[in-house]
């Protein structure tokens, strides 16, 4: 691939720009509050683990991480499970209203969460799912399912149609073909789609906060609440922030070889 002059410098500058604010957060999470407020230090002079210790020992803190992971995983599973057959249908067949349906799905990906916050609150309260991980998982489907369909459709289209035909000639039933042949063939696509579902569900706060109160409160919401109640506990806030970055970083590491392709939504 041809690159431009000075590319190393540009890349280095940009990566520094990306990492500097994150470094500052990590830096602050290891400082005592006294050090944060009183002096300007580029690295912690009296490093401390007190903020992390507090998060890992106080249930009202660490339960937030568990709650968040619970609805994120639920949402990813639901999204992929319903999106797979649909992606196959969109990729292989033409049927009544297919194009309109596809656009309608995509348009939901673009709907502002703020619009749905209040109606979702009413809906999930009415059916008794309010303050459970299910409510958030289902609510996040509104943007994750269309995205998963879109990504998977690209990957399914990359599988030659002859493979389907041969399988059916060999006497595979449709469900068996789907699980035994198609799913392994697009495994990397499923990984990419799962990554995106995970990502968008993990970073979303508005709906997650609106649909939970005590039992299923996500970590991101706990951060905002505790900080405003306890004045400004900067060190604790920074430590909690650092811990929310870690799951994402781990997931990126696992899918790093597919990231670029996934970001083009499987259709480059």
């Amino acid at each position, binding site marked *: *691939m041809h*690159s*431009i002059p*000075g*590319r*190393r410098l*540009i890349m280095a500058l*940009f*990566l520094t*720009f*990306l990492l*500097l*604010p*994150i470094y*500052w*957060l990590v830096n*602050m999470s290891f400082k005592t509050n006294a050090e944060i407020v009183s002096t300007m230090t580029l690295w912690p002079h009296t490093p401390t683990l007190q903020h992390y210790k507090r998060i890992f020992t106080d249930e009202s803190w660490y339960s937030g991480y568990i709650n968040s992971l619970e609805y994120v995983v639920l949402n990813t599973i639901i999204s992929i*499970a319903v999106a797979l*057959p649909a992606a196959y249908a969109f990729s292989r067949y*033409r*049927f009544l209203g297919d194009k309109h*349906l596809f*656009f309608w*799905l*995509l*348009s*939901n*990906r*673009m*709907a*502002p*969460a*703020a*619009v*749905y*916050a*209040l109606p*979702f609150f*009413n809906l999930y309260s009415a059916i008794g799912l309010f303050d459970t991980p299910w409510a958030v998982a*289902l609510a996040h*489907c*509104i943007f994750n399912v269309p995205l998963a*369909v879109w990504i998977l459709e690209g990957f399914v289209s990359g599988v030659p*149609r002859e493979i389907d035909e041969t399988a059916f000639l060999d006497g595979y039933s449709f469900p068996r073909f789907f699980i035994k042949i198609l799913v392994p063939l697009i495994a990397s696509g499923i990984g990419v789609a799962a990554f995106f579902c995970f*990502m968008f569900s993990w*970073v979303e*706060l508005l709906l997650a906060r609106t649909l939970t109160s005590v039992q299923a409160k996500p970590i*991101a919401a706990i951060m905002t609440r505790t900080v405003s109640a306890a004045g400004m506990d900067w060190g604790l806030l*920074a430590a909690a922030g650092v811990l929310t970055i870690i799951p994402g*970083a781990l997931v*990126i*590491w696992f899918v*790093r*070889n597919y*990231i*670029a*392709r996934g*970001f*083009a939504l499987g259709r*480059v």
Partner: protein
Amino acid sequence: MDKTINQKAWFLVLPVFLVVAFSAVLPLMTVVNYSMQDTFGNNQFFWNGVGWFKELLDPSTDLGGRFLASLGRNLFFSAVILAIEVPLGIIVALSMPREGWSVAACLVILALPLLIPWNVVGTIWQIFGRPDIGLLGYVLNHLGLNYNYVSNEVDAWVTVIVMDVWHWTSLVALLCYAGLKSIPDAYYQAAQIDGASRWAVFKAIQLPKMNRVLLIAVLLRFMDSFMIYTEPFVVTGGGPGNSTTFVSIELVKIALGQFDLGKAAALSLVYNLIILIVCWVFYTVMVNAGSERPAKEGAA
């Protein structure tokens, strides 16, 4: 690829249809219902017809003024960040290392901001920009610039825009990188034989190949910046004054803050409609751009 007509495919799509309809159509009907009514609390509702919509589109009323002002701010914001992020994203994608471990390292660092919860992004920049404890604010103030995003409108805007560039340029860069990766080496060799300049290679080979991914990037960035809520809310809370109050922030203020259901619902519908129209235009352009391309062109 030719597709066969098969109405039974609806059975495969049905689960998706049900799940999305449950979380999209039902709430939307609630919104339409509210938008026509007025409430005085206690679950008592009164028919209000299109009253809210009239008020919403009339800048002389309180509601209309707030809506149109936040809409203007939001459009300006979207335009600015698109103008910065798209060229910057292309430059970063062109600067990616060619091979070796550094490719993976760059990809991981690039993707990192995308996976940070949005309110933590806000928190990061809130801390980073503070004049007393943040590196950025501290350095700027010691350079003699009087930077304070809490009290100064321009500073608040700059902070929100830089934050968005920090947060989302990687998405554009990764998309472009994926587009660039799909260009066969033969194209570059041919260009070299023809003695094409660096600029000519970019214009004749790389840019056309990035067309589709760029459209996706612009679409996603426009939509997401148009519904931005969490990050500016955490950093500036919509202030100082109302200077960084975008449409979503205004909407949440009206709906969950004042519980003015009718007004909020009318605003939601108009907001949704704008997004839907823009989305449709982009989608049509994208589909057409895709079908003009010769069917068999290298990469799958």
